[in-house]
C-alpha cells in the first residue's frame, strides 16, 4: 500500500495554498468541469428527469450493496462460465500477490496499465518493479504522474496540476524528447512511447468502472482508447476492482453510463466503452488468451459494516464532488494524503486506512452540500462527513481544545444558576476585548485563529432570560 499521509492534511493544505501552479490548476480547468457538466445535463434532461435518474441509480446501488454476497457469487459463476478466472483479495498485499503469481506464471516482463484507482491503493507499480517487471501507465495523465513519481491529483484528471511546461520537462528528462509547449506534440510523444509498450507488453492491467453480475461483464470507460489497447494487445488481461462495483444486469448499464459521462467530463457518453466478459474465443482474431478479475476488499468491509457509511460504496468515481467542493478547489488532491481526494476521499480514505490518522479529513468540508447536489448516485456526503466527525470525537481522537470546550459547555448548561454565573463572568471579561458588540480579536491560543478571519458577537449586557424575568413577564410568575 502506498504511504498513508492523511494525518498531514493541515500542513499539506498550507503548502498547496502557497503553490502557484496548484492554485492556477484549481482555477480555470475546474470552471471547465463545472460548466461542462451542467450544459451536458441541460442539453438532454429536465431537472426532474435528471433527478429521477439519480434516484434510480441510488436505489440500484443500494439494492446491490445490500445483497453484495449474492451478486458476488453470481458474478463469480458467470465470469468463470465465460472462461475467466475470479480472485477474491482480502487486502492490498493479497491482491499484489495474486497479480505477481499470474505474472510469474506467464513470464511477464512488461505490464501496461489502464487507469485503476484500486491499483493505486495497492501500490502495485512499486511491487512489480521490485520483482523485475516494468509497469507502464497508459492513461496520459497517469503516465505523466508515473514519470513524476506522484499520486493522482484528481480521480479523472490525475495530472491536472501539471503545466505543459512541466510535462515537457518530464518528457525531456525521461524520454529524451525535444522541449515543446505544444500540447498536441506532447500527446504524440507520449503516444509513440506507449505504442512501443503496447506492442511488447505481455500483460494488461485495467480497473473496472462497472461489473455486471448476471452476464459476468467488466465495463471499462476511457476517452483515449488506452482501455481498449490494454485489454486487447497483451496475452493476459487482469482487471482489478473494488468488490463494490457491481450492477445486477446489463440493462442497468445504460443509466450509469449516462450519469457517469455527464458528471465526469460533461460528455453525452465517453468515447470508448469496452464490455469484457472473458478471454478471447479460439476463433477470435486477437485479444488476451487469459482473463482474470480480482475483486478487492482492502478495508471496504469497514464501510459495509456501518449502516450509515455504507452509502459511500455507491460511488462511481466520477469526480464531480471534487470539482464542486470549495475545500478541494483550494487545497487540491495531494493534501488529502492518500488515493482518494475530495469529499468522497474524506470519507473513504479514513475508513480504509484508519480513522485515527485520517481524523482531520472529515473536517475538510464546509458542509455546503454541493457534493451531495451533484453526486450522480445521490450519496449524502455531508451526512456521512458529520457521522464520521461523530466517530472521530467518540473514539477520543478529537482535538483536545474541542473536547475541553464541550466539557465546559456540558457543565455550564446543567443548571440555570451555572449558566447565569458563567454569563456574568463572560460579560466581565469581554470588556477587555469587545468593541461595538463584537469580539474581533481574542488574544488566547487556539481561539485567536478563529477571530483572525471572523468576528464573534459579544454577550449582550443582559440575557433574554433576565429581561423576561425583570421587565416582560408582567410580574405574574407564579
Amino acid at each position, binding site marked *: 500500500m502506498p504511504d498513508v499521509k492523511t494525518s498531514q492534511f493541515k500542513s499539506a493544505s498550507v503548502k498547496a495554498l502557497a503553490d502557484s501552479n496548484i492554485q492556477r490548476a484549481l482555477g480555470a480547468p475546474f470552471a471547465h468541469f463545472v460548466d461542462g457538466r451542467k450544459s451536458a445535463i441541460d442539453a438532454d434532461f429536465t431537472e426532474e428527469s435528471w433527478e429521477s435518474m439519480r434516484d434510480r441509480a441510488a436505489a440500484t446501488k443500494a439494492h*446491490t450493496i445490500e445483497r453484495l*454476497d*449474492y451478486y*458476488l*457469487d453470481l458474478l463469480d459463476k458467470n465470469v468463470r462460465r465465460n*472462461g475467466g478466472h475470479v480472485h*477474491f*483479495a*482480502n487486502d492490498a498485499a493479497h491482491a499484489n500477490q495474486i497479480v505477481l503469481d499470474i505474472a510469474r506464471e506467464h513470464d511477464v516482463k512488461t505490464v501496461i496499465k489502464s487507469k485503476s484507482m484500486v491499483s493505486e491503493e495497492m501500490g502495485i507499480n512499486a511491487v512489480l518493479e521490485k520483482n523485475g517487471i516494468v509497469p507502464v501507465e497508459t492513461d*496520459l*495523465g497517469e503516465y*505523466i504522474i508515473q514519470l513524476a513519481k506522484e499520486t493522482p491529483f484528481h480521480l479523472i*484528471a490525475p495530472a*491536472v496540476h501539471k503545466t*505543459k511546461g512541466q510535462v515537457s520537462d518530464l518528457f525531456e528528462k525521461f524520454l529524451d524528447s525535444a522541449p515543446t509547449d505544444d*500540447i*498536441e506534440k*506532447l*500527446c504524440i510523444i507520449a*503516444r509513440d512511447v506507449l*505504442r512501443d509498450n*503496447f*506492442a511488447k507488453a505481455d500483460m494488461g492491467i485495467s480497473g473496472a468502472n462497472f461489473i455486471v453480475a448476471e*452476464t459476468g461483464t467488466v465495463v471499462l470507460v476511457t*476517452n*483515449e*482508447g*488506452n482501455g481498449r*489497447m490494454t485489454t*486487447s494487445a497483451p496475452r493476459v488481461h487482469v482487471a482489478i476492482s473494488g*468488490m463494490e462495483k457491481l450492477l445486477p*444486469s*446489463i*440493462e442497468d448499464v*445504460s443509466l450509469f*453510463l449516462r450519469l457517469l459521462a455527464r458528471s465526469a467530463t460533461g*460528455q*453525452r*457518453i*465517453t*468515447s*470508448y*466503452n*469496452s*464490455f*469484457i*466478459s*472473458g*478471454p*478471447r*474465443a479460439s*476463433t*477470435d*482474431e*486477437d*485479444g488476451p488468451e487469459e*482473463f482474470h478479475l480480482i*475483486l478487492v*476488499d482492502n478495508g471496504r*468491509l469497514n464501510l459495509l459494516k456501518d449502516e450509515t457509511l455504507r452509502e459511500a460504496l455507491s460511488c462511481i468515481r466520477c469526480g464531480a464532488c471534487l470539482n464542486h467542493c470549495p475545500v478541494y478547489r483550494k487545497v487540491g488532491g495531494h493534501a488529502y494524503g492518500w488515493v482518494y481526494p475530495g469529499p468522497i476521499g474524506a470519507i473513504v480514505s479514513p475508513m480504509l486506512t484508519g480513522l485515527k490518522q485520517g481524523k482531520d479529513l472529515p473536517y475538510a468540508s464546509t458542509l455546503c452540500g454541493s457534493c451531495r447536489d451533484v453526486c450522480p448516485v445521490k450519496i449524502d456526503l455531508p451526512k456521512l462527513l458529520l457521522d464520521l466527525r461523530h466517530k472521530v470525537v467518540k473514539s477520543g481522537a478529537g482535538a483536545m481544545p474541542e473536547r475541553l470546550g464541550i466539557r465546559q459547555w456540558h457543565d455550564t448548561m446543567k443548571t440555570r444558576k451555572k449558566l447565569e454565573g458563567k454569563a456574568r463572568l463572560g460579560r466581565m471579561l469581554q470588556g477587555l476585548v469587545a468593541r461595538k458588540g463584537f469580539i474581533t480579536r481574542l488574544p488566547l491560543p487556539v481561539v485567536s485563529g478563529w477571530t483572525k478571519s471572523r468576528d464573534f458577537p459579544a454577550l449582550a449586557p443582559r440575557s433574554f432570560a433576565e429581561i423576561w424575568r425583570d421587565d416582560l413577564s408582567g410580574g405574574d410568575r407564579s
Partner: protein
Amino acid sequence: MPTPVEDPNKEAFLARVRDALGRTSPIMVTPDHPTLKTTLPRHEEKIRTTKARTEARRSQNVARLESTAIAASWHVHRVSDAEIAANVVAEIASSIHAKNIVRTAEDIFKRVDTDATLRKRGVRSTVLASGRARRKDDLKEIAFKADMGVSGVEYAIAETASCAVFQRKGNARIATLAPPVLALIVEESQVLETLDDFFAIVRFQFLTNRGRLPNYYNFISGPSRTADIEQTLTVGVHGPGEVHMILLASA
C-alpha cells in the same frame, strides 16, 4: 475451454461480506430487481416492441444519430447506395494520402466493395484476420503501421452516436483502434434509438443463446480524446483522432 476453478478464498470472503451486512445465510432466490426479474417470455415481448418501434421510427432515429454524431466530432456521410459508400471510403483515403488500409471481414464488405475502389486508386487494403496465416503479433504490427481502418458495425445507437463493434472471427479488435483514421459503415437498419434498446437486445441474446454473445464488444462514440494536459482537448491519443461514419441507406 474448461471452466476455471473457484477461488478457495471465495466462501470465506463472501461469509465476511454477509456478516458485515448482518445476515447469517446466503440469499437463495433471485432478488427483486426490475432489470433482473424479467422472465424470458416478457423479455421476448419487450424485444418485439423494441424492434417494431425501431422500424417505425427509422428515419427519425437516423436523423438523430446524424446530429449526435456531428456533436461528438464524427464526420458523417449519408449515402444512398453501396457504390457511393465505397467511393466515400476511397475519398477519405485519398484525403489523408493513405497507402495502407486495414479492414475487418464484416458482412458489410459483401455489399460495399471497398477493396476494388481502393485498388483503383493504388491503395492497399488488408483484411486483418489471422485466418490468412498470420499470427496475432503480426496483426498488431500491421495495424500499428496502417494509415486507416475500415469496418462495419453491429449496431449504431442514435442517443449517443455509439457504434457497437463486436469481436468475432474476422473482426480484429485492433483494426478499429490502432490506425489514426477510422471509417465505419453503418446501415440504416442497424440504427437503434437508445442505449436501453441496445442492452435489452444484448440481454435477450444472453438469455436465449449466450454462445452468440461475444466475450468482448465495444462502443466507439467519437475520436480518441484527452484533456489530461491543462484540460485542453486533444484528439488522437491511443485511438483514431479522425472518425468517419458512413450512413448507408438500407437496400
